[in-house]
């Protein structure tokens, strides 16, 4: 393989991988405060992309994206208010089934609102034919947007959890909910914030990838599966793991195209998911004891 070609694969792998990482981090945020896996996470990306596409008809692109992020995070808060909060002493399994149901409902609602047409946001800079040459590989400037936005989100999230009182409270909840409550933290509110945060991140990711991958009412599902694989691979709840896992899966997928037919691309990540669940269910970075302590 020529060097340029390898570089091309790497760049495309990193682009997809960083989106998977964002979806996985979305899973992790909710998982850490509630212990559940929110299977509607992928729908947040679709919702963000679709809302921004509709809004961009009436307002400039940056504003449309901003409102799409806000609207989606409110949708995330609503999921918590209307469903998660109402369940008294729910089992983990029950909550997971609720989120699967929600993902179906959101998808069908999107189908009614936007029909099944494939849409996309315009390229943020240039157009679909603009390309930048990096050491002989050609990439769209949108790829740089994806990498930049994802990198920035991971960085800001890290700072948020480390240096703000709210971030610390959320970590306290994930460590020990009872103790956090007795320290005066309203644990219910932390769950709401975690849903809002993961929805907002998903929406923003959905907007930046929309020009490249395009958005359709059901485009969240496959992203959720990839993101879930990455979250499991990195170790549930571990954000560093999610970034490494995301890049790894993205890279594997893009290199698989050179050996296997394109159609097998999605099968690769599913095969990996099954392998990890068999061999190392705690993920690359998760400790075994810790995952045994969690509810499943």
């Amino acid at each position, binding site marked *: 393989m020529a060097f340029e070609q390898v570089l091309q694969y790497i760049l495309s792998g990193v682009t997809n991988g960083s989106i998977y990482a964002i979806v996985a981090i979305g899973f992790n945020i909710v998982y850490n405060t509630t212990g559940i896996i929110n299977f509607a996470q992928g729908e947040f990306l679709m919702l963000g992309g679709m809302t921004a596409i509709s809004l961009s008809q009436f307002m400039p692109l940056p504003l449309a994206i901003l409102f799409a992020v806000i609207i989606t995070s409110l949708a995330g808060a609503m999921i918590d208010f209307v469903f998660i909060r109402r369940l008294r002493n729910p089992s983990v399994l029950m909550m997971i089934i609720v989120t699967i149901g929600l993902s179906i409902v959101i998808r069908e609602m999107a189908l009614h609102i936007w029909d099944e047409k494939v849409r996309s946001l315009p390229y943020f800079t240039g157009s679909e034919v603009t390309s930048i040459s990096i050491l002989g590989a050609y990439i769209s400037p949108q790829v740089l947007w994806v990498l930049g936005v994802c990198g920035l989100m991971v960085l800001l999230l890290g700072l*948020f959890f480390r*240096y*703000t*009182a*709210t*971030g*610390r*409270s959320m*970590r*306290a909840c*994930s*460590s*020990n909910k*009872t*103790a*956090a*409550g*007795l*320290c*005066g*933290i*309203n*644990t219910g*509110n932390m769950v709401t*914030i975690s849903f809002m945060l993961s929805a907002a991140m998903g929406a923003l990711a959905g907007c930046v990838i929309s020009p490249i991958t395009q958005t359709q009412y059901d485009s969240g599902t496959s992203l959720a599966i990839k993101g879930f694989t990455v979250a499991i691979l990195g170790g549930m709840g571990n954000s560093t793991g999610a970034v490494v896992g995301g890049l790894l899966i993205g890279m594997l997928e893009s290199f698989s195209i050179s050996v296997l037919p394109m159609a097998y691309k999605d099968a690769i990540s599913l095969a990996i998911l099954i392998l990890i669940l068999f061999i190392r269910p705690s993920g690359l970075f998760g400790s075994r004891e810790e995952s045994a302590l969690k509810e499943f």
Partner: protein
Amino acid sequence: MLLEVKNVSRAFGGLRAVDDVSFSVPKNSIKAIIGPNGAGKTTLFNLISGSLRPDSGRVFFNGRQIQGRPPHTIAARGVSRTFQNIKLFHNMTVLENVMVGRHTRSRSGFMAGIFNLPSCWREEREIENRSRGILDMLGVSGLAGMNAGNIAFGSQRIVEFARALALEPELLLLDEPAAGLNMHETAEIAEIIRKIREMGVTILIIEHDMSLIMDISDDIVVLSSGKMIAEGRPSDIQKNPEVIRIYLGEEDAQDQEP
């Protein structure tokens, strides 16, 4: 009275874990709750701190009813606690643990926190300074940057004290603070408890270490099988024949000097 517990009961299935218990804690005193294992002491703490709802009865804090309220509300009113089995946040540093304790005392809302407004930064700095001050006062400031899960057991207990104090409580509930500690560490804990009282904090303590209890408490409540069987000064409780029989066992009762 800072805390008044009135006819509080709580059953788990057929077991009456706490059965019609009433007592009160005056401001700035140290009150102890003793009793054999399974007497309902920790359940009583959980009823006061809001982790459990009483089936019946009322709990007043500063004259206001608090029974059945969520734990974070009760904590915000000024009731703080430590646990028998230490519950620090292991994924955080010692300093961060204490800073979380101050969360309820911070004024800026979470929106300001998310957007990192300058007011929030100033407050953040203040919270950090106060938290360091508390660690310093308890003599564990050297551990501030360590991961809370990695420090010695005795130190973890002191850090839990620090976290509870960060809330600036009026009432501090201590659940077996000397459990698992050696004599030297227990003496250290006794010293800390006295120091906390001097700060004007009222203390309600569950403890099995009798010498510690007799040493520091003003007043003792004795529970057995969920029922209150005695209340009084340490010297009276020591002489109370029923307490000696139930709490120390028949043989010890005979060994006691008249």
